[in-house]
């Protein structure tokens, strides 16, 4: 569709890896942060050859923990992005910043926040995860609930008017009441956006080992879902829109960047192991940091995999990513994705009929899900019900 373009920048460093984390990240102290920053800037320049001058709607700096980089390193990265692309005043620029990485002393914290503000970063996403110090410790987080409250307050003082806080629920040993108490404390901080995820046990993490050895038991699915629905209700009551499976926002504060992923827009990804979608190609960068730096250093793109989407890939991705959203996927957008045209430019005739022609084998089962109250199928398109979210993979799998 190419109606919008986003940028994703991956910073694979953390102060310390959490017990549940399977992401690509390295302990910051012993890692080549400045060399990586240089390579990253070089990759931005290399990729810009193809995409130079595009107007960028959103920039997202994720990780890892991007805030572990020095201010000067972050400045270089954002500076390079501005050099190569058209960044407008209203471009959403998000940085993931974990509490207690903004600096040890208040003064330094303020300086970092001040610097981000100055660089044009206008959205902060903080990995709070819990407001119970015991649970934070169990998860392997380095911060405390007190750090969170302090950092949010400081960010407000520095003028950040768009803050997201992440919450993890279904941590072993946590009751539904515990989860809701966490949530209430987060709501009390009055963020514009809240992301809630149930803890997922990933392979090759300390948590996976603990489950394997029997030292820990996963929260049963029934309880996890009960918690999830209780959270959805509590947030709705607090004035947040449930606009995506795991995301909630006050009106007008939906994450524009995340929305790009769900409407088949382009996003250019930079950094170790990062995944992008540009000019109908999905690509993934190499995951070995030495290889990444060496490849970029020799003037080559650090691509590991690249796949050119077929029309069916596009409609299929449009449907399963679209179904993550509250509004679901419209037949028009799906068919537009099939033809890779912007729905706004070209109205699509007979979209509904064409859609079900493409997915005729899925129709019976989709209808069955609809009869069971899990999926809504109407004249416009498809969307999940809140109950349907619980088993969304089964529904999405009909369309791949």
């Amino acid at each position, binding site marked *: 569709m190419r109606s919008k373009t986003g940028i*994703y920048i*991956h910073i694979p460093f953390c102060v310390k890896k959490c017990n549940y984390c399977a*992401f690509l990240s390295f302990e910051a102290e012993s890692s080549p942060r400045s060399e990586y920053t240089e390579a990253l800037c070089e990759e931005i320049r290399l990729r810009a050859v193809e995409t130079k001058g595009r107007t960028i709607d959103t920039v997202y700096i*994720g990780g890892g923990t991007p805030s572990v980089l020095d201010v000067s390193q972050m400045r270089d990265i954002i500076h390079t992005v501005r050099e190569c692309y058209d960044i407008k005043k209203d471009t959403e620029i998000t940085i993931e910043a974990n509490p207690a990485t903004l600096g040890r002393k208040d003064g330094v914290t303020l300086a970092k926040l001040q610097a981000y503000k100055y660089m044009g970063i206008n959205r902060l996403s903080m990995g709070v995860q819990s407001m119970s110090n015991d649970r934070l410790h169990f998860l392997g987080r380095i911060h405390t609930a007190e750090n969170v409250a302090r950092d949010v307050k400081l960010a407000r003082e520095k003028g950040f008017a768009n803050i997201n806080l992440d919450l993890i629920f279904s941590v072993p040993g946590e009751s539904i009441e515990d989860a809701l108490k966490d949530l209430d404390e987060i709501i009390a901080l009055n963020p514009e956006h809240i992301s809630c*995820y*149930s803890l*997922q046990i990933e392979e090759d993490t300390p948590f996976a080992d603990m489950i394997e050895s029997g030292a820990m038991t996963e929260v049963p*699915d*029934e309880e*996890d*879902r009960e918690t999830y629905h209780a959270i959805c209700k509590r947030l709705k009551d607090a004035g947040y829109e449930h606009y995506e*499976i*795991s995301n909630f926002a006050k009106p007008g504060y939906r994450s524009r960047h995340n929305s*790009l*992923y*769900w409407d088949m827009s382009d*996003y250019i*990804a930079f950094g170790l192991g*990062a*995944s*992008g*979608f540009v000019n109908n190609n*999905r690509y*993934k960068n190499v995951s070995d940091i030495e290889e990444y730096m060496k490849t970029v250093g020799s003037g080559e793109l650090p691509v590991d*995999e690249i*796949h050119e989407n077929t029309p069916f*890939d596009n409609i*299929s*991705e449009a449907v*399963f*990513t679209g179904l*993550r959203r509250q509004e679901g996927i419209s037949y028009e957008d799906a068919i537009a994705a099939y033809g890779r045209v912007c729905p706004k430019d070209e109205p699509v005739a007979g979209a509904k009929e064409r859609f079900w022609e493409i997915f005729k084998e899925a129709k019976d089962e989709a209808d069955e*899900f609809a009869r*069971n109250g*899990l999926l809504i199928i109407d004249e416009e398109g498809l969307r999940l019900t809140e109950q349907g*979210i*619980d*088993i*969304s*993979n*089964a529904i*999405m*799998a*009909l369309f*791949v």
Partner: protein
Amino acid sequence: MSYLDNIRNFSIIAHIDHGKSTLADRLIEKTGLVEARDMKEQYLDNMDIERERGITIKLQTTRLKYKANDGQEYTLNLIDTPGHVDFNYEVSRSLAACDGAVLVVDATQGVEAQTLGNVYLALDEDLEILPVLNKMDLDSARPDDARAEIEEIIGLDASEAPEISAKTGQGVDEMLEKLVEVIPPPKGDPDGKLKALIFDSYYDSYKGVIIYTRIFDGKVKRGDIIRMMNTGKNYEVTEVGYCIPSTLPADELKAGEVGYICGSIKQVADARVGDTITLASDPTSEPLKGYKKAQSMVYCGIFPAEGEKYENVKDALEKLQVNDAAFNFEPENSAALGYGYRCGFLGLLHMDVITERLAREFDLDVITTLPSVVYKVVMKDGQVLDIQNPSNLPDPTLIAHIEEPIVKAEIMTPNEYVGSIMSLCQGRRGKMLDMEYLTKTRVQLRYELPLNEVIYDFFDALKSRTRGYASLDYEFIRYQPAKLVKLDILLNRELIDALSTIVPEESAQAKGRGICEKLKDIIPRHQFEVPIQAAIGQKIIARETVRAYRKDVLAKCYGGDVSRKKKLLEKQKAGKKRMRQFGTVTVPQEAFTEVLKLDDAK
């Protein structure tokens, strides 16, 4: 001196993995007519499945030339034998075509149950046996122990057994010298009436069936009209020749020789292994002894999986049958699985081989149902029915009694596992015949076991309880009355005929419970609860429930990695394709074969 003096007809016999095929490769390489560079590894095992499992199912035979130290050139006919208990009859016919056998014993392992079984078959055919010790290149080789075992257990003099390594070629020349010396030349009268043994056959799309034969008396050439003495059919010979192992046409085959005959024969069943070939115009009076009809011991249903065409399955089964006289099939209709075929096999391995070939060679997606043996059902009116499909079992009130096939099993094992094997056999309704210490540490157990207790997972259970050390050999002995009942399985209160089995009444409860538990693990969660019930007649004897699924959601779409998410969904969808729909319940296809694999030790 007769031409017969320069011929040696022999087989190599060995336990699985003791190196039979590797030795055959070395012999072909040293003396054969195939260039070494044209050799695939293990030339004689030419089916992929055989190569992978290290066993031989379909025979190949080959002619070798060896110049011995006495200055004479010898023709060595190496006749291959299949290497599994399912194919005992075929082994015995191959051996009947020989005058001697090379017995390969793995010097690191010693004598095993199958070694013994094969030696007995060879002794039954009055063959001269040359023991050789293989794998001498390995550090763990214990030739003296192996030699002692051969003498103690088999009773053969092994003091002069050549020590070889089929892998490196070490000692193979010495072995060939010994072979020419020990194994006698064939006897026979080239001017007598034609008497030739069929020991194998396969279908070739150009020549029709190619018969592998050993000529005992007389001659055969192109244009002769031959007669199969047991089936009574006549054919005109279109070609004769030698196997090198590919076909090499010759003018004639005469007494003592081994080669092939073609006669525009349409299917291998018409040239049945063990049959005697003679000339229609001048037949011999007596056929060779030992002919048996192929008898299926194990049956199962084969059905096209979801999306697979019935016609394709039929086509493939027909093609397989052309080449395999021991395999038979007929149409079957299952309420659960639709139209398919009931197939008969010599044994479980034979069944595995056929189903794997369907998947690999024909790229078919099929569902195989639980294997079953043939029961003799004696009705109150005196009628006797052969029932191999549990669904066809008549109303129990009309049945006087049911008889089941019993096999004699010989299990050879290191002594420390005796207790464990005895409890396994006991759990399988086994009756111990005797137990013999073959050496201080090796024991042979003889059991009578119902065949239906052996066909599911007996071999796997035996292997896992003995860390792979025990070996098994079995043969059918008789039918015997037993208290048996039909165990039905209901999913969501619907009877699934393809999951019905015939089980002993005394263990029906335990089996029913086991099957329900297994199905509970195999059947994925649905949007609703799925009750699984085991029943005998109207009586429910076990029950489990697959709870409705509550959660199948990926909370986070990490960093925009749509491709990863998509792969997960595609995998989920592909998994679903391997399922079968019964009303509203979806069952993975493996359920039909996995469900009865209930090792009692677990």
